């Protein structure tokens, strides 16, 4: 993995967001078991690594992450902390929202819009550089990713006590 050529505002932004998300996550009351948290983290780590490889790499090259098109250490930090922690918080508040009897689709749309807004904010710090990618693509992608997370949430809730290891 490459180190950043210049350690500037996008690197500081990533570090600040990581610290903020870690503190926020630790302040939350635990709603999932440790194994479920690992499933959520691995799922979002996988989604970040695979989708960025497919969409941001050649032949499509729809966007670039950070300063250079190569794979930087800060790309890996985003995969390892920002996406998994965001996915965990999305499901944490989804559980809260659902228990209050509010419609899931409203939460999904709201979360997708909020994430697009956060992407716009992070773009002010040159985290992403859009080539042929638009915010509409981002909205659709986040919506589908959150739908997948919700499917996993229901699977986790249903399957937790059903199966047992050998």
């Amino acid at each position: 993995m490459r180190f950043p050529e210049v350690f500037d505002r996008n690197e500081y932004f990533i570090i600040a967001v990581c610290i903020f998300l870690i503190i926020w996550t630790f302040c939350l009351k635990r709603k999932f078991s440790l194994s479920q948290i690992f499933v959520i983290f691995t799922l979002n780590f996988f989604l970040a690594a695979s989708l960025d490889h497919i969409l941001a790499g050649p032949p499509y090259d729809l966007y670039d992450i950070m300063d250079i098109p190569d794979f930087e250490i800060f790309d890996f930090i985003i995969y390892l902390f920002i996406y998994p922690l965001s996915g965990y918080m999305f499901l944490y508040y989804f559980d809260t929202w659902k228990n209050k009897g509010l419609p899931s689709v409203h939460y999904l749309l709201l979360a997708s819009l909020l994430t697009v807004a956060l992407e716009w904010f992070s773009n002010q710090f040159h985290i992403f550089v859009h080539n042929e990618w638009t915010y509409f693509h981002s909205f659709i992608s986040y919506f589908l990713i959150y739908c997948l997370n919700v499917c996993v949430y229901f699977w986790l809730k249903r399957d937790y006590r059903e199966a047992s290891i050998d």
Partner: protein
Amino acid sequence: MFAYLIISIMLSVILIFSSFFTRKVLHPYETGMNWLFTSSLLFICSNIIDLNQKWIEVSHAQLPFWILTLNRLFIIPGLTLWLLFLYSSKNFRPIFKVLSTSFWFVLMVELQFYHDSIGLIHFRQWTIYFSILEWFIIWLLSFAYWTFFRLLLRKEAV
């Protein structure tokens, strides 16, 4: 190349459906976790080896890209999952597990060299030793993550 894409799609479908049989000895969480983790490792290794170091030159055409993506998303994680299934099964003798691990290594290295021979990838600064090292790291990390997660599930008495 198109025929190989069709074979890759068929193999991916077979491996996805066959993974349901691993429920006999693996917890569904283990199946899902290992699949996702192995696939993530493959994408990250590819980023480092192909994109950064350029030790392997990858064709940027659509067909080779999707063949390699299917390999990383379904075929290799699916085969690794079956290896872990053998490890966790009590019906197989240890020598059979060792032989299966050796077979997995040979298959992975051969697959990489086959991709080079058909022009899907092109080795620049790459030897069989690098290949063995790469697959050893992937096997070790997958095995370590799976073992850790299995212990966690046992601790939680799931």
